[in-house]
């Protein structure tokens, strides 16, 4: 007769050892959020080894599906995945209502602002924002002055980077009004999550994210040139070597639109055509994932191999629509950002629904002084850099880094802004053999043709290094599925 084995002690609930360290937690709140109770119970029924097992197969699936970005070396192409964390970030219906209305308001203000600065420039004449900040900006495109864009829409696709402070209040960190990327991960993360953790979401009502492609196609059709009832929409990509190529493929497929490169397009008589197996076919709307500077070697950078000669003239004449419009970069500039609350009030006569992070503008003497005085307490950012590069986090910087920054600030103050350190919210994250708090942000995506629609949720990026505040994928960031409860 066999002896009955001593029963193993049940593994501790998954979140029992979790401590958010006084940060606002997206799952626990400050002291337990009622809307995540159900999800917490389900998470607690899992143990770490089971989570790790499922996380591994989810990651393998990303490789198999080729949801990767490719890093090229001399000899080889290496596929990398954006690390995916399996514990979702959860937003309540109220949270989402704030974000959705706030993003719509912000997009409306951005479009009004862009239309104004490329036409009558009231906002400059009324002294709401310094004229040199706009007109002297590298991303201000003088060529766009007086150009009509359909529906007055400049920012068709907008990604708004939002963080949550230690009290749980949402604040806008940055607007991305050029070619914001990452939306494909929102949708793929959801699919992955539903395959890896069907039990976690079972019976919980989560807002659907699958309609993004159809909404994008709708928005693109709404901004077709006048008189075109059945517009041909294409997605213009820099090509397979671009790190976001997977997303371009994904969006083209979701829209049912051809995925073209510059070499596939040609301009004749100020109209844009694509080369097909059946000869030239006219193109009406271009969702372009190429920066302004590379769009048209005749109008902008002459060395661009990615662009289409003559495209800008066709655009200016209204024969083709570009999404986003040319010249939107001036609106998501980090220095212009500081004026967004005033811009919102100026055009919409409303208070901002989503607050900015308070910002010191170093081009103004008062802002520079404040920044230099508290360099070791502030986050200082160069205004012309993307991807988190050049950001100095005062409390974590070495004396030498601060000394170097001080010199740079004095030399070129207009290139910098500074902000108080926001104590970013955290979310439980599977790290090695434990569940630990990691900082997150959120990038909702807004689509605007004749009206604005916001994809429920958005991309939750997570800084996987302990204590890190930098969520960018180029610097050790990953992503999570974002659940908007309905």
């Amino acid at each position, binding site marked *: 007769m066999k002896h009955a084995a001593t029963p193993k002690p049940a593994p501790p609930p998954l979140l029992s050892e979790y401590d958010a360290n006084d940060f606002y937690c997206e799952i626990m709140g400050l002291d337990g959020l009622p809307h995540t109770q159900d999800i917490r119970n389900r998470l607690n029924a899992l143990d770490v080894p089971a989570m790790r097992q499922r996380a591994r197969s989810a990651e393998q699936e990303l490789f*198999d*599906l*080729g949801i990767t970005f490719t890093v090229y070396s001399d000899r080889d192409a290496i596929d990398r995945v954006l690390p995916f964390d399996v514990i979702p970030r959860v937003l309540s219906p109220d949270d989402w209502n704030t974000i959705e209305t706030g993003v719509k308001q912000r997009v409306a203000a951005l479009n009004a602002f862009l239309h104004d600065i490329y036409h009558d420039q009231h906002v400059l004449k009324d002294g709401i924002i310094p004229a040199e900040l706009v007109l002297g900006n590298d991303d201000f495109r003088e060529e766009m002055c007086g150009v009509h864009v359909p529906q007055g829409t400049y920012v068709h696709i907008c990604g708004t980077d939002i963080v949550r402070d230690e009290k749980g209040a949402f604040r806008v960190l940055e607007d991305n009004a050029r070619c914001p990327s990452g939306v494909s991960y929102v949708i793929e993360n959801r699919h992955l999550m539903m395959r890896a953790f069907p039990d976690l979401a079972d019976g919980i009502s989560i807002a659907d994210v699958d309609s993004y492609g159809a909404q994008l196609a709708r928005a693109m059709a709404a901004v077709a040139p006048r008189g075109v009832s059945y517009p041909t929409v294409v997605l213009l990509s820099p090509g397979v070597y671009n790190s976001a190529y997977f997303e371009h493929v994904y969006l083209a497929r979701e829209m049912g639109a*051809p995925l073209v490169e510059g070499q596939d397009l040609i301009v004749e008589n100020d109209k844009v055509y694509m080369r097909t*197996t059946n*000869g030239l076919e006219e193109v009406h709307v271009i969702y372009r994932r190429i920066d302004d500077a590379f769009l048209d070697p005749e109008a902008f950078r002459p060395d661009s191999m990615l662009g289409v000669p003559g495209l800008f003239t066709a655009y200016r004449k209204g024969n083709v629509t570009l999404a986003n419009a040319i010249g939107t970069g001036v609106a998501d500039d980090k220095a212009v950002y500081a004026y967004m609350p005033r811009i919102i009030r100026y055009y919409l006569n409303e208070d901002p629904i989503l607050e900015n992070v308070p910002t010191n503008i170093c081009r103004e003497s008062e802002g520079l002084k404040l920044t230099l005085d508290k360099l070791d307490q502030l986050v200082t950012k160069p205004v012309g850099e993307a991807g988190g590069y050049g950001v100095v986090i005062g409390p974590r910087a070495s004396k030498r880094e601060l000394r170097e920054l001080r010199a740079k600030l004095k030399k070129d103050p207009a290139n910098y802004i500074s902000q108080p350190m926001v104590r970013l919210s955290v979310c439980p994250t599977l790290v090695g053999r434990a569940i630990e708090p990691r900082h997150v942000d959120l990038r909702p995506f807004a689509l605007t043709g004749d009206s604005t629609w916001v994809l429920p949720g958005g991309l939750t990026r997570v800084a996987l290094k302990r204590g890190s505040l930098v969520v960018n994928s180029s610097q050790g960031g990953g992503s999570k599925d974002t659940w908007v409860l309905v």
Partner: protein
Amino acid sequence: MSSLLARFAGNIFWLGRYLERAENIARILHINETYGRDDPQGPDWRRVLRLYSDEQRFLEAHDDTSPPSVLRFYVLDRNNPSSIAAAIAAARENARSVRHLISTEMWTQLNIFASEVRTLGQRDLRVNTLSSAANLVVTGCQTFEGIAEGTFFRGEPWCFYQIGKYIERADQTTRVLDISFDRLLLDKDDAIALVQWNLLLRSVSAYHAYRSRHPGISRPHDIAAFLLYDSEFPRAVALCVQRLTERLQDIETRHGSRRDAGVETARRALEFSLETGPGSELTPDRLHGFLDGLQVELGNVSSAIRQAYFV
């Protein structure tokens, strides 16, 4: 619905060609290794070099034609554009460009398959491992083909995929026949001849098909006629050309792309050669000239298609 982008037509054509090529190379290596051992002289690897007219190119970079270096050249060498490694990598890159036009299942399988092929190394070329490596490649290509059969939307992209596949397949069959035929005729020893015939048939997956068509004693002419003209053998040159013709017609009549005079001329020349045939008195020289002509004409069709649709 808008027409197919010219560049994508090319990508899909090459996707079909490269996978067909990799499958054929792998099968030939596998068969040469496995069944070539029946030959008293052992597997003849120069035969494979002759088959692809690669002797000169190979000898420029290699000192000898030892089995390991020939195998390396055809399996692993990324600098050889018709190695398995290069063909599968190129197939994947082409698929990546048209990923939005093929099914997710096709892409996923090819992506996993390509990463398996990337892990192949010297250790997979040994006597005891080559067969399973070759098998991995043949099975991977055939799996892709099966998934395409079941999931690939039958629009214009599919037509170009089929066209690429059939041009490559027809070309591969002519090469296998060409390189083997002289030995079929010259070997007077029946036992050796039988080994050669079987080897040839297996190189194009024709062994069982041929046996059911021609039970009993085989003559070289029957084998040649079977590989060139059998209307039920899927790798027969005439059947490939017939499928190619049908897909070209589809492109024009069902998908609205324009008829191209250059393609039509090249295709008719190919068809005419096939109909005329190598003549009744089949000598190695005559067959060689005939097959050479077919290869040139397949190449002409391919360039005419490129001119008409891919640029």
